[in-house]
């Protein structure tokens, strides 16, 4: 199974080894292995229920039962509560966005505490997402879906976390907004953020990622560098059942 983890030139920022995870009694992750280098964008692809979201949750420490190893810069994170993992510099933008309806847009944006130096300033965030600036005082969940997604991404950029876990940031969004988010991811990569992206929409994934992990039944079954995507497209279609 270790063969699924590719050799990287430098020591990986995030290394996941034999990660297993459960929901109550049901065993969902069966040994995930990932390596992500500083400044990379990798995606996790896979069918519904393959365990992509669960992988991100397990890394973030919000899956109640998990085992294996997750290291960030060599520091073991498994066993820590999620608040300590957050403080180590990882941030999750969840599938359902989790915008708080009892908080204003501004409060939502300012909610996550700074965990490290080096986060973006509020000004920089507004530059990236001008829509947010106009709607600062309105209720968080009154924003449109796309704006909520921007808010969800924006608020974790402030914290200084440099490893971002983005779970289907394009789901349910209008195509026009999907393009906007693609541009944002490219910009973040430029600024030195490391990103793990879960996607259904693999056209989109291809346009932003360096590398793709394919997950099936809770295991990584293949790794495809973006550069070699063309050659592997048939294989990928088979994996995804397209």
């Amino acid at each position, binding site marked *: 199974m270790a063969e699924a983890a590719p050799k990287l030139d430098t020591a990986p920022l995030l290394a996941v080894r034999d990660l297993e995870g459960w929901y109550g009694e049901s065993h969902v992750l069966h040994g995930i292995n990932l390596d992500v280098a500083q400044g990379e964008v990798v995606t996790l692809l896979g069918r519904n229920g393959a365990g992509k979201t669960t992988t991100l949750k397990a890394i*973030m420490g*919000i899956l109640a039962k998990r085992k294996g190893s997750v290291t960030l810069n060599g520091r073991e994170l498994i066993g820590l509560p*999620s*608040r300590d993992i957050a403080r180590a510099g990882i*941030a999750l933008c969840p599938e359902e966005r989790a915008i*708080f309806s*009892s*908080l204003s847009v501004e409060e939502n944006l300012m*909610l996550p505490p700074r965990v490290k130096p080096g986060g973006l300033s509020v000004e920089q965030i507004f530059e990236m997402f001008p829509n947010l600036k106009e709607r600062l005082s309105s209720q968080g969940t009154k924003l449109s879906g796309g704006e909520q997604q921007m808010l969800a991404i924006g608020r974790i950029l402030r914290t200084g976390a440099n490893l971002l876990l983005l779970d289907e940031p394009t789901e349910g969004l209008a195509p026009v907004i999907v393009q906007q988010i693609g541009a944002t991811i490219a910009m973040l990569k430029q600024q030195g953020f490391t990103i793990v992206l879960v996607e259904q929409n693999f056209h989109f994934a291809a346009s932003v990622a360096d590398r793709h992990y394919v997950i099936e039944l809770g295991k990584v079954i293949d790794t495809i560098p973006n550069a070699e995507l063309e050659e592997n497209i048939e294989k990928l279609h088979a994996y995804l059942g397209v």
Partner: protein
Amino acid sequence: MFELLGIAPQALFGQLLLGLINGSFYAMLSLGLAVIFGLLNIINFTHGAQYMMGAFVAWMLLTYFGLSYWWALVLVPVIVGASGIVIERLMISRLYHLDHLYGLLLTFGLALIIQGLFRNQYGVSGMPYSIPPELQGGTNLGFMFLPNYRAWVVVASVVVCFGTWFLIEKTRLGAYLRAATENPTMVGAFGINVPRLITLTYGFGVGLAALAGVLAAPIYSVNPNMGADLIIIVFAVVVIGGMGSIMGAILTGFGLGLVEGLARVFYPEGSAVVIFVIMAIVLLIKPAGLFGRTA
């Protein structure tokens, strides 16, 4: 002399003022209840018992340790709040993943236990607790004699209520709390210690009840049943205000105190039901309560 429905306006002012004073207690108790409900989604049936504990602990501090009212004002919310924290850690925290009704049932059981224990220990005749010397006496306002202590109760309650409102609605800490209510997992994933936050919130709500108990001790009979009947009225206040709405609880608390005050003058027999009648009307017209958000 100008009379309104047979009542001199001066007397009416007096009665309104008294209503406001009672409203202070409603406001403070329903505030604590609303804080706990709003942030933990638990209907805290133990609230009345905790109010009673507040008064009793004040009495104990005085009787066993000779600590005065002013000490009680500071210490009691902390002590009773701490007992609330223990309850939250040991029991309530196990119920968050269940239907909220279980929280209601658990706290109902706890209220029975606490009240029963105090009854066994101290009987029900009540304990004497005097107004602190600094606040004895009163001021003649022309239309009524206002005991200094009652004036103090209103001031203290207004300060506490609006302080709490500010804390929850306007500060960063409050934002954490509100966010944690909606989605504790996510807030934890931002690096915040949510269980501690929730525990402290419960402690805080209980502390508010205890503080109301201390304020009540010098003017109401300090006995194990003092909270049992009040709690139902306070529930009604919270329902009218809109459950979970902090401002709703405060304003409705004071407002209903006033309404009840009027009822005591014009229709004293009905003054106990007037709150429930208002509740029925409000629910007919605005099912979510006066200040509640519709789900």
